[in-house]
């Protein structure tokens, strides 16, 4: 225990001396959050819209203004000739067209089915499907409102029940992608800093020759490793909390669940990440190699295979299996459950167990390799 403390205080002093690295460890994650948080925004606003209104009635104008007022669309102008519409889309002046047929108001008041057409520039499939979703929602809302309006008053006879789908999106009603992305960013950033800093700190001692000196002392690998990683665990923990606080401040990230659970999840995740860094340090001989391996092995899986950006359920089945060894996958579920849903442990205990298993296995492998190298 005293030996562990000796190693830990030595490591801490080294970190504190190297203030540039300390600043990088503590604040670059929060800075990353800013960059990614603003750049990685899948929300679509102000989609340019042209309107072909063949009805020119009160109701048709109401529908148009419901589009404009939603904030998703911005009206470029009214157009009559179909050729003109083609030209606008081709030139990229508008990305969407709303076409209202003649007799729109009349049919509506007679409660006859009526169809409006929405045309969307499909050159970006993601954007197109999002815009199409917005348009459908707006039209449904509008038609629902019309049904109620045209029903006779409640005094004479009960209104025909209007059966309509009412989509409700929970936790993130405005479907703000930042809310969904921020937990992913936290995982991504913490993973990289923990893996890289741990791997580098051990390999640096190998490179400088101080490791050899320490191995000559009656010190077994375990106190050495615990003493060495502890300061980094504390620092990456503080850094992760800083990221969450800045996300709350900058992106209105709600914190609906328990801080205790949150800290537990972060702790488990970081221990696993450090174990991964240690494992890398037993393979790499130079800081350069360690840095590259650490970066690749933490960045790519966390970015691509964790469900951070691409939903796991839409991956090919083989890739889905692979995602099971990516710790960020479990951490993300736990984090989103705690932060966005305010769920308690029953909702994500399996993920916590998975994180614990990852940490244990990685630690076991690392200490196995290390004690082989040590003795």
């Amino acid at each position: 225990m005293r030996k562990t403390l000796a190693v830990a205080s030595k490591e801490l002093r080294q970190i504190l001396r190297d203030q540039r690295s300390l600043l990088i460890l503590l604040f670059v994650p929060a800075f990353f959050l800013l960059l990614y948080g603003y750049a990685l925004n899948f929300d679509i606003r102000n989609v340019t819209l042209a309107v072909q209104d063949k009805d020119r009635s009160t109701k048709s104008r109401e529908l148009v203004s419901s589009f404009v007022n939603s904030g998703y669309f911005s009206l470029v102008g009214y157009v009559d000739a179909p050729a003109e519409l083609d030209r606008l889309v081709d030139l990229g002046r508008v990305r969407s067209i709303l076409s209202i047929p003649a007799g729109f108001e009349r049919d509506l008041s007679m409660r006859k089915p009526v169809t409006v057409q929405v045309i969307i520039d499909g050159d970006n499939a993601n954007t197109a499907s999002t815009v199409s979703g917005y348009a459908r929602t707006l039209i449904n809302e509008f038609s629902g409102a019309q049904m109620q309006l045209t029903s006779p008053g409640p005094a004479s006879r009960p209104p025909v029940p209007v059966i309509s789908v009412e989509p409700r999106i929970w936790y993130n009603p405005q479907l703000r992608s930042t809310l969904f992305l921020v937990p992913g960013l936290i995982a991504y950033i913490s993973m990289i800093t923990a893996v890289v800093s741990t791997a580098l700190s051990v390999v640096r001692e190998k490179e400088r020759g101080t490791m050899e000196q320490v191995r000559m002392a009656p010190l077994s690998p375990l106190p050495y490793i615990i003493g060495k990683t502890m300061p980094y665990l504390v620092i990456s923990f503080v850094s992760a909390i800083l990221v969450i606080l800045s996300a709350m401040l900058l992106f209105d990230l709600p914190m609906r669940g328990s801080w205790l659970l949150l800290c537990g999840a972060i702790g488990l995740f970081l221990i696993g990440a450090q174990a991964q860094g240690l494992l890398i340090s037993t393979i790499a001989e130079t800081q350069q190699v360690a840095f590259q391996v650490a970066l690749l092995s933490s960045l790519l899986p966390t970015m691509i295979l964790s469900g951070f950006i691409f939903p796991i359920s839409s991956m090919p089945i083989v890739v889905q299996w692979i995602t099971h060894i990516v710790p960020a996958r479990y951490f993300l579920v736990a984090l989103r459950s705690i932060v966005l849903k305010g769920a308690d442990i029953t909702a994500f205990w399996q993920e916590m167990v998975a994180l614990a298993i990852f940490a244990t296995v990685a630690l076991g492998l690392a200490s196995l390799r290390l004690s082989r190298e040590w003795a």
Partner: protein
Amino acid sequence: MSDLPLRAAKSAASEPGLAIDVRGLTRHFGAFVAVDDLSFSVKQGEIFGFLGANGAGKSTTIRMLCGLLKPTSGTALVGGIDVSRDPEGVKRTIGYMSQKFSLYEALTVDQNIEFFGGIYGLSRDRFVERRKFVREMAGLQGREDTLTRDLPGGWRQRLALGCAILHEPRIVFLDEPTGGVDPLSRRRFWDLIGDLSRQGVTVLVTTHYLDEAEHCHRIAIIQAGKLAALGTATELKQVFSSRPIVEIHASQPVQAMSVLDKNPNVEKTSLFGTSVHAVLKDASLDPSVLAQALRAEGIEVSSIGAVMPSLEDVFLDVVERVGAA
């Protein structure tokens, strides 16, 4: 020193008074034999020099003696402890200082001492006392809060030695401790080694500086993993008792060497700085014969005369003989 009787009991297996006892020590790396059937012993309080070219197996031997590397075969008792049975026990007994300055450069002098005190598990009282000793020994009083990277080489090296002997080991391994240090600091460092030896500490030291090796009580030269020569400096120089060495200062040393190599009285030649050393086959030969031979080839000779063999002569001779065998 309360554990001395225990240590004596442990070393009962080997000859008493031996700090290091190596028998048939061998280490393979795959097909490569780094250390080949090495046997020697070092007495308590002795300064034992370990010489050899790079890759001769010095470091591998030291790593085995320190319990860092398992021998393929053979035994080594260090402080009476078998290195392959109880490497951790060996580590507690010895101090080690390596060719690189194995200190943490971003830490201050005192922080380095504190770290080593911590990993060797020194008690608080003993640590305070030993810290004082190390500061004085290394001449670092008043520089306790200097960053190690800002210390001149000689100070750093003495601090490294201080950290290595903080826990008062009875046996100290120094692996090329004086590399890259100025002559004055090297001199001071050897004075410290002498002090340790007088206190009964056994010192096994490797070095590239053959003039330094003269400070050792006994010297082992290893070549290709094998023991090539062993003895005191005087004993080792006996190989030249029947073959005098002549030192020649000539205008064109390289040409002089090729002329001398053809001379039937000369066994071999080597370059020593700007002078040439020629080993003669017969002690009765008058060196002036060689001077005449050189002048006949148009090489000016400013001085010629018999010299005492140096350890460098011995080293080169041993390495060449073993290499030729």
